[in-house]
């Protein structure tokens, strides 16, 4: 009887414990469900925020004078004229480098031009953009340059920069960057779009004329008495027969993501992220589209000569492409360009060609020099390792290379003995 009672009590006790356990569990679960929504997460974001510093245009233009040389902070587009290299420092101005002695170039002076991205030189006149305006600067005496003309509001699409507006009376002269931390609520979704800004693209090839030599990724080119410029969407024509006073003649809407312009005789080769457009300028003020060569969405500088156009395609954040290669396009029939051959590269940027030698800036791999005698069988003659390369101009047996750490000059008069002449270092 006692044993039976003990057994019953034991079972009841276990039952009681389990019941308490389940009851407490359910209660806690219910309480949790009620208060769950009250708890929130917090995300902090630490980033650099940039704000513009504005100045009145008149004040800026009054300050466009020859100034003492400043350190080159970043290599940019180059323009060769006579014994000078005009090196654009984007949005800052132009470094004037005396290259009379290529083995010992001298960073001679600096012309401050806020908002400049491209320069060309015709005769003694340097033409540079300053946001929405086109400036004509007399550089007949590089140590005492003079601003001689302002063509106002000829680049209206540049009235917005990084989301900030530029009105007719002011320009952005500086950007102030500081660290900022913001705090927000729960942040589950993160943008997967590769919307990160990129480094600029530079490239070059020969633009034959007394006006000087520019690059394959230039946005300004001079053909005879006309200046052709491309923005992200528009081709513009300026009559610069009197470079002191350029006259806007016409414009052509070209779609989006236009990047570069390269002249060859009476043709313009326009590079965009979606392909190459070929325009006739037989009527200089009325560019007419002849043909299009499309490729995948990638950044592409283009140069052309004789029967072939050379296009480098590369991957990169804003370019969105995934391939890195050189495409050689047969333009014998200019109205029907045909892809002839493709060569893989690491991350090709600017390119230039002089005779049979093809120069390609291949990103972190440095400068590659190829024998392009047979376009079906390019042979690498030399690879010069250096910091990340952007731009090369091969002209008159000298290669001018803009790299991350400076501007190099190489002598390739003997292709079997290509040698470094000099380097101008960036800061």
């Amino acid at each position, binding site marked *: 009887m006692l044993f039976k009672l003990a057994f019953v009590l034991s079972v009841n006790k276990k039952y009681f*414990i389990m019941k*308490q*356990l389940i009851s*407490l*569990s359910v209660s*806690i*679960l219910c309480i*949790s469900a009620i*208060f*769950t*929504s*009250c*708890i*929130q*997460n*917090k*995300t*902090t*974001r*630490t*980033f*650099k925020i*940039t704000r513009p510093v504005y100045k009145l245009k008149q004040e800026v233009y009054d300050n466009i004078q020859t100034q003492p040389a400043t350190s080159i*902070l*970043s290599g940019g587009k180059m323009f060769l004229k006579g014994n000078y290299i005009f090196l654009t420092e*984007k*949005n800052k101005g132009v470094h004037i480098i005396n290259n009379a002695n290529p083995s010992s170039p001298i960073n001679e002076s600096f012309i401050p031009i806020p908002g400049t991205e491209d320069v060309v030189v015709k005769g003694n006149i340097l033409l540079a953009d300053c946001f929405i305006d086109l400036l004509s600067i007399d550089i007949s005496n590089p140590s005492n340059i003079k601003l001689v003309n302002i063509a106002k509001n000829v680049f209206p699409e540049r009235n917005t920069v*990084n989301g900030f507006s530029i009105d007719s009376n002011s320009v952005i002269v500086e*950007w102030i*960057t500081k660290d900022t931390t913001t705090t927000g609520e*729960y*942040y*589950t979704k*993160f943008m*997967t779009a*590769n919307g*990160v*800004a*990129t*480094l*600029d693209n530079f490239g070059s090839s020969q633009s034959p004329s007394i006006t000087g030599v520019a690059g394959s990724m230039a946005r300004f080119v001079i053909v005879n008495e006309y200046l052709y410029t491309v923005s992200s969407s528009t081709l513009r024509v300026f009559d610069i027969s009197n470079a002191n006073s350029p006259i806007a003649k016409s414009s052509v809407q070209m779609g989006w993501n236009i990047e570069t312009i390269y002249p060859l005789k009476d043709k313009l080769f326009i590079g965009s992220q979606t392909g190459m457009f070929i325009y006739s300028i037989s009527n200089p003020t009325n560019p007419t589209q002849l043909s299009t060569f499309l490729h995948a969405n990638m950044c592409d500088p283009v140069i052309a000569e004789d029967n072939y156009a050379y296009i480098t395609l590369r*991957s*990169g*954040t804003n*370019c*969105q*492409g*995934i391939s890195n290669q050189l495409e050689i396009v047969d333009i014998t029939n200019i109205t029907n360009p045909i892809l002839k051959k493709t060569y893989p590269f690491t991350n090709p940027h600017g390119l230039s060609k002089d005779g049979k030698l093809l120069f390609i800036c291949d990103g972190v791999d440095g400068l590659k020099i190829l024998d392009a005698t047979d376009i079906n069988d390019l042979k690498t003659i030399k690879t010069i390792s250096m910091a990340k390369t952007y731009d090369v101009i091969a002209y008159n047996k000298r290669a001018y290379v803009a790299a991350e750490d400076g501007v190099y000059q190489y002598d390739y008069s003997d292709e079997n003995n290509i040698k470094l002449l000099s380097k101008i270092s960036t800061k």
Partner: protein
Amino acid sequence: MRIILLLLVCLNIISNANAQIKSSDREIDGKKIRFSTIQQVGVIGNGEEVHPAFQVVFGAQYKRYFLGVGAAIDPYFANSFPLFLDGRFTFYEKRFSAYVYGDLGINKMLHSNARFPREWSNGQPAFKLHTGLYHDYGIGMKTKLAGNLYYNFSIGMSFKETKYSYTNYTWPSQQPYDELYRNVASRFAIRMGLQF
């Protein structure tokens, strides 16, 4: 993930073997320290997300105190692998008793997260993952089932810090820098499991 699970299973087997051998108990000053393992499953979440979670702790039980090292699989917001020290205090040593616990450690994120790839589709570097802080506190109850086998049930607050960055560029100098994100998730943690 499979490697982590395999590691946890192996550690579990080793600990289970240790728990069965009474001769492995050490004595300090005549008091017994018993190796013990706690394995728990449960849910963690708040109004935004709710996820299952798994946790294992290996440590030593001395009277009413427990101290151990634990690891967890935590898919909340982004898959991560917290590693932590676990401390527990049981209020009274009876068949049915309450305890409090606290965990403190680090939170390691995993690149296997689709949300945080190592590279973008174009080959450009995407995210860098950083180690964050992990801490967890709560109360629970444990029921003795047999011998050294206990059933645990706990509820508490769990905090997980997720830190990641990606390369952005300043304007207009285009200088690269790391844009840093730090997400501190506060959520309820309800767990149940076994201790032996």
